[in-house]
Each structure stands twice: as structure tokens, then as C-alpha cells.
């Protein structure tokens, strides 16, 4: 069984039949919708969420139906899946084979797209300095994205020191960072980099390092990247080069663009109804935005939408039903609270 099966089983197990397979798929690929973002918190899978962003729906469905056939899964009702006892055994075995790498945080770095952006910029910057070091002014870039190329070019132009000094500086920063890692992870990271005569290796080519599984290898690489972003962000003085690759226009990395608009209006003190009018959007859309904002920015949601007392009543009910399906929670509360209020309360709940 491959790492992908392990991830799928893990998520289906966490969701435990309370979302359709579509909901599970969105968690795997990190769909940027309020519902999925909320689910990641609810089902305590924030870290593993968004770990297989490029997974196609077909590939996912194939894998699910294969596991259904093998008797690892059972279908509780249309498109809701549960692990069978056999499936639980398999998962236990797989848990010994695969572990989410130490610093991997999909919800934080993959979902937002921050890690891929960081890597694109960094690897192109690296390739550029490395080419300068051997006096190659012409090279085919590792990234074809024009905005990445522009960003790196700008960065090179702004260098305060000669290229050779910059290379040394970057080298020292990388060594400083990589030293704290297990040897294997440092090797993996360096093997992905491209310099003249040293083209980066694909995950397939590097999979011998991690159980022969390209996806598992990729997770370790991403984990290193997540730690890199975290460390350099916490200590920019120590990493004058490395911390800059994470720069993104403020606020942009987390909220969807439309939710950001709503957020601005909320900050100006507009009510939900006013925002509907100003933006010409449906109530449900604005509600989705507010949920999304609440997940990231609890303080910003004012008390008139939901107060502490109401929130705790809802959370208690949720706990008592032991369910995360909104309908059951709503029924338990005798219909006194709207779906929106229940979702909001769940969203504001602390990360477990």
C-alpha cells in the first residue's frame, strides 16, 4: 500500500462518515472554501490537509473504490464511507510504515500556496546565483512562471553585494539551516536544487530515500520547506536571504480574495446585511466569508454575530451529540440557532 492510500485512509478515519467522499477529497487537495477550511479544524486534520494538492478526482475515486472492494471501507449511505475493522487494522500497520514528517503543516503552508511560491522563487534564485558562479549568463530557468521570473530578477537587481559574496551568504544560511536536520532530509533538499550541470532530481528519482514512494518522499521535502519558512520567518536577522522568499502582499496568503473584501468591510464596522448590499452578494456567500475569517482571525468577529455564551451552548451541544453534522447539532438545540451560528461557533473553537 502506498503513502497515498495511507493518507486517504487516515482522512476517511478522521472524518468518520460525517462528510461525503467529496468532502474528504476537498480536504486532501486543500480546496479553498469556507466549508473545507472549517472541516480541517473540525476533524482535526489541519496538518495533513492539502497534502496532495495535485490529486485528480479520478485517481481518488479509483483508490476509494479499490479499498471498498478490498473490504477496508464500507459505505454507510450514498458516498459516506467508514473504515471497517479490517480497514482499521490496515491503517494501524500503515501508521507504522508512514508518519507525517515532523514539520509538515499542510494547512498552514500548502493550503495557502505559500510553500510552492517560496520554493519556486528560492530554487530559481539559487539557480541564478549558481549560474553566475560559473559565469553562465544564459540558462533555461527551472520555473516558467513569468511572475516568479520577474520577482527573482528584481531580487537579483537589488543585491547590495557582488554575486559571489551573495552566493557565499546564501550558502552559509543554507548550511546553518540544514545542519539541524537529519542527514537524509538535508540530502533530499539539496538534491532537488538545480545548478549548471546539476539538474534537480524528481521525487521519483529520489524515492529510494523514503520507502520507494515518490509521494512520501515529497512529503519529507515539503516538511523541510515548511520548517525553512517557519525558522526564517521567526528569525529574519539570522537568514537575511532566506526569509525574503516568503514575502507576499499582506493578508493575501490566507483568505480568498473575495473573503478579504468582506473582511475589510467588517473591519470598518459594517454589518452582514450592509455588506450584502454593498457587495451585491447573497447572504450565504457573505456567511461563508465570515466563517473563513473567523477561522483565521477569531478576534475580528464581533459579538453581535455570536457572543461567548451562545457559542458555548452550541459547542456543548456539539460535544453531547458527538457529531459534526450540522443537522444533528441543530436538532439537538431544538432549532434555536441557525446553521450559520453553529458553523461560526465551531469555527471559533480553539484548535485542538
Amino acid at each position: 500500500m502506498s503513502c497515498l492510500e495511507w493518507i486517504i485512509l487516515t482522512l476517511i478515519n478522521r472524518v468518520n462518515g460525517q462528510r461525503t467522499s467529496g468532502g474528504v477529497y476537498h480536504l486532501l487537495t486543500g480546496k479553498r472554501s469556507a466549508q473545507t477550511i472549517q472541516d480541517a479544524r473540525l476533524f482535526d486534520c489541519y496538518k495533513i490537509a492539502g497534502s496532495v494538492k495535485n490529486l485528480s478526482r479520478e485517481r481518488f475515486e479509483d483508490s476509494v473504490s479499490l479499498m471498498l472492494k478490498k473490504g477496508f471501507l464500507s459505505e454507510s449511505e450514498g458516498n459516506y464511507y467508514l473504515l471497517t475493522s479490517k480497514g482499521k487494522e490496515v491503517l494501524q500497520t500503515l501508521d507504522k510504515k508512514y508518519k507525517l514528517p515532523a514539520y509538515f503543516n499542510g494547512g498552514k503552508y500548502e493550503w495557502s500556496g505559500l510553500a510552492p511560491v517560496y520554493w519556486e522563487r528560492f530554487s530559481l534564485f539559487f539557480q541564478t546565483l549558481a549560474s553566475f558562479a560559473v559565469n553562465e549568463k544564459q540558462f533555461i530557468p527551472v520555473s516558467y512562471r513569468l511572475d516568479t521570473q520577474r520577482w527573482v530578477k528584481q531580487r537579483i537587481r537589488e543585491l547590495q553585494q557582488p554575486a559571489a559574496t551573495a552566493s557565499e551568504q546564501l550558502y552559509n544560511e543554507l548550511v546553518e539551516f540544514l545542519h539541524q536536520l537529519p542527514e537524509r532530509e538535508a540530502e533530499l533538499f539539496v538534491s532537488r536544487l538545480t545548478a549548471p550541470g546539476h539538474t534537480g532530481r524528481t521525487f521519483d528519482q529520489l524515492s529510494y530515500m523514503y520507502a520507494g514512494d515518490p509521494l512520501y518522499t515529497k512529503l519529507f521535502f515539503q516538511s523541510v520547506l515548511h520548517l525553512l519558512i517557519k525558522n526564517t520567518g521567526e528569525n529574519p536577522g539570522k537568514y537575511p536571504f532566506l526569509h525574503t522568499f516568503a514575502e507576499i502582499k499582506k493578508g493575501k496568503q490566507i483568505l480568498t480574495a473575495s473573503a478579504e473584501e468582506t473582511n475589510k468591510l467588517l473591519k470598518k464596522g459594517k454589518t452582514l446585511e450592509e455588506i450584502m448590499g454593498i457587495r451585491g452578494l447573497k447572504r450565504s456567500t457573505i456567511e461563508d466569508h465570515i466563517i473563513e475569517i473567523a477561522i483565521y482571525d477569531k478576534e475580528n468577529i464581533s459579538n453581535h454575530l455570536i457572543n461567548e455564551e451562545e457559542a458555548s451552548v452550541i459547542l456543548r451541544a456539539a460535544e453531547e451529540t458527538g457529531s459534526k453534522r450540522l443537522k444533528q447539532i441543530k436538532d439537538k438545540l431544538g432549532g434555536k440557532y441557525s446553521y450559520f451560528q453553529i458553523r461560526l461557533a465551531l469555527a471559533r473553537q480553539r484548535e485542538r
Partner: protein
Amino acid sequence: MNLEQILQEKFGHTEFRTGQKEIIQSVLEKRNVLAVLPTGAGKTLCYHFPSRLIDGMTIVVSPLLSLMEDQVHQLRAKGDKNVLQLNGMLTFEERKHVLNEINADTMLFLSPEMLANRKLLQRLASIKNGLFVVDEAHCISQWGHEFRTDYLRLKEVIKFLGNPSCLALTATATNKVEKDIIGQLEMDDPVIHRYSVNREHIKFFVHKAETKQLKLEYLKNCLKTLEKPAIIYAPTRSDTISLSRYIESLNAGLTAYYHGGMSKEDRLLVQHQFLNNELDIICATSAFGMGINKPDIRTVIHMHLPPSAEQFVQEAGRAGRDEAESAAVIIYTDEDKYIPLSFIDLEFPEEQELKVWLRTLKQLGQNNVSLPGDGEMSKILQAEEPQWKMLKFYLEKENIISGPVINERGISEQLFNKLNRQFSYRKLEKERKFEDMESLVQGKTCIRAGILRYFDEEKEAGIEKCCSACGLSINDVFSGNKNMQENRRLPIEQNGWKEELAQMLIGPKRRTIR
């Protein structure tokens, strides 16, 4: 104007290759030009060169996204920053950026579906247009091996842009296709430059094996003699993977696989490795090779029968751009014909399918629904997107669809019969193309002569012992002694990551740091 001098100064080449100068001269004389140049003959220079001299922007329409990207980035890497591209893969902001940047000195690559965008065309028309290049021009012809409906817009577009002179380029055109290109583009008084598809230094070898296993055996023996770098083409994605594993097990050279389902980053890395001689052999689907500008590929092997002679000639032609001895090998079994035939089957709708599609469209029309986008519409019909686009093209021709309006009253039994006939006809054409390919390799006659005949070239190959059918064997040409210039990235464990990092970033000269 001394073209050679410009070639030297601006492009760093000392001489033109066959055909290039003649084509460039005609383009500079503002003539409409159709050029049929064999694969690997340097088509890009035929428009890149004039684009630097003529007054006005050069637009290049190219159907293959990955090819376009490779071309654009290779040209930009060589320092030509006024080369830009517009295609569906760019984000909204990127597109805006490109549209702001274009000017009369730009060489702009466009994917054909962009031409349906009115606003974009208006922006293009606001700039002086000097040259309009149609790359892979055979795509405009239904007789070609890759018909693209988007290409039929081209003649309107050229008019809209104020009739800049037009250069149509292709590597593979029979006489029929050649006439069709000129007609469809309404090229006025065109100059035709046609060069032979024959590439004498490429030797053809065909081997029919009885079983799949024997095919691999034969490949194993081939690889002992044939030179590298090599491309091995396989029909499906999973075949490329298993083939690369097999070659790994033979220790026949460093290998990797390549197919369209890989992530873009990994595809670029594999491509880089191959260009850089860090790999000996690449196992790939036909997705690989379009934009690869590697002159020293020695061997191209097909582990199946390509769907058409055109495709075979293009893929085999990636060998030996440097005009040194090279090999094109086909290893096949009788069963191999089912894959291309089933691909053809999938491309066209069954009668019943077509009926359902038309019924669905009629319903949409009756409910006054305006036509959804292509992606959406293919979902509604449960069709592949190219299938829907093909249907849409015919429906537009029949005035059933005009813009977003569905003229449902035109959808009738008669229409169904007509479309069904057309599809069956196109399907038959494709099947015939495959049969032509099959007979190229099955006959006892010279393969090269067969290819030349297929492309309506009169002259015979004129070389003795030019292919396996003429009695040439791989050992006659290659000895297996010559090894490629290796340029290996050592396993990282060898020197450790720190040393590797120092070598990459600081260079071999100054390795004394820390």
C-alpha cells in the same frame, strides 16, 4: 542587406541551414510564404530572424502549449526578452501584464484558442502587425493528421489585424494538405518553399516481434549497439514507467520516464536532465520532444506503431539534428495496432452518443439557455472536451450555434445523419492514416522510399542500404563503442550534501569555505 552578417551578429550562427535563407528572403520581401521544412531543420529561425528586421510585431500561432513554453523560455534565455506568450495557462494578471508589454518589436506566441477573444484581438490590432506566422500549419487541414478547429479562425484574424504577410510552416504536408493550407488561409499569391522530408543520416530499422516479451528482448540487444542519448516512445503513460524500470534493471544507462500526467516541475527537471546529458535514455509518450532543441540525439525507438506516418516522421526526426549518423527504430507486435485504433474510436462519438448530444442541445435551446463554456458543456454532454469542440465546430458551420445562441429548430434527423456521416468519414480517414503507417513497416520495400512516396516526393531515396528493408543492420552503422559525454550528478551520499551545495553554489574553483 547581408543576411549572413546579421545571422552572425544577432544569432551567433555562421551559416544558414537548408532552406532557411530562401524562406527568410521571401518573408522579408513581404510575400505570403508556405514552407515545408523537415523536422529538425530549424523552423524557428525562419520567423525569429525576420521578426528582428521587419517593421511591426510578429505573431506566432502555435498549437502545442508545452512546445510554446519551451520555445519562449529558450529564446528568452538567449537574451531576447521581447519574446512573449499568451495562452490559457497564464493567470489573469499575467495576461494583463503581457498585453501591456507588447509593442511593434515583440514576437508574440499565441495559442489558437486565444484568437476567439475579441478584446485580445482588438489589443493586437492596435499595434502595427508585421508578420503573422502559422506554425504547424497542417492543423488547419482536415486531411492533416491533427486537425484543429481553432485554426479555421486564422484567416479572419489575419484580416482583422490588417493583413500582415503570412508565413505558414509545417514539417509534414502531403500535396493535398499543402493546397488545403493555402486555400484555408486564403494566401494571396503565395511562394512555396518545399524541402524533402528525407534525412539521409537517419537510418530506419523495423523489427516485428512475436510477443511482448520478445519485443523487450530485442530492445535489450538494440541498446547494446545503438548510441545515446536516446528517446524511447511508448504508447501509454504506464508503459513509459515500466519501460524505464526495465532499462534500469538492464543497466543499459541512466534513464527516466516522461509523460503528460507528471507535475510540471518534474517534467521540466527530466527535460533539463536530458538536455544536459545527465540522462542516457528517456522513456516517453508522444508528449515529449516537441520543444526539445537537442542536436545530438542519436537514437529514437518506437515500442509501438505511431498513429500516422506524419507523427512517425516528426518523432523519428528528433534524432540527428547535428546531421551525424542516427537511428530510428520501430519494434512492434501485431497486437500493437489495437491501441491506436482504440484511440481513434474514442475520438469520435458513437451513433447513439451523437443522438444524445444533439437531444441535450435541443433541450438547452428549447429552454433558451445560452451556450455554456467549453469545459462546462463537455461536462453536460459527458464528452471529452476535444469531442465537444469538434461538434461545436460542425454546429457552427451549420448555423446551429451562433455565439451563445442555440438554434434548436435546426437540430433534426437530417442534421444527425449529416454529422454522423462526417464523423464516420473523419474516422475512416484516421484509420486509413494508420493503415498507411502500418504498410510502411510491413512491406518488403525500402522504408525511406515509402515515406517519400507518402509525402508525394517523386525522387527515390538514392542511397543503397538505407534501412532494414534494404538489408541494413544496426551493427553495420553503430558499434556501441562510442559513449556519450557523461555529465552525471553523483548520488548525493557520495560527497555529502554540504560538499554538493558548495560545488553548486560557489563553483569548483573556490571550495575552501568552511
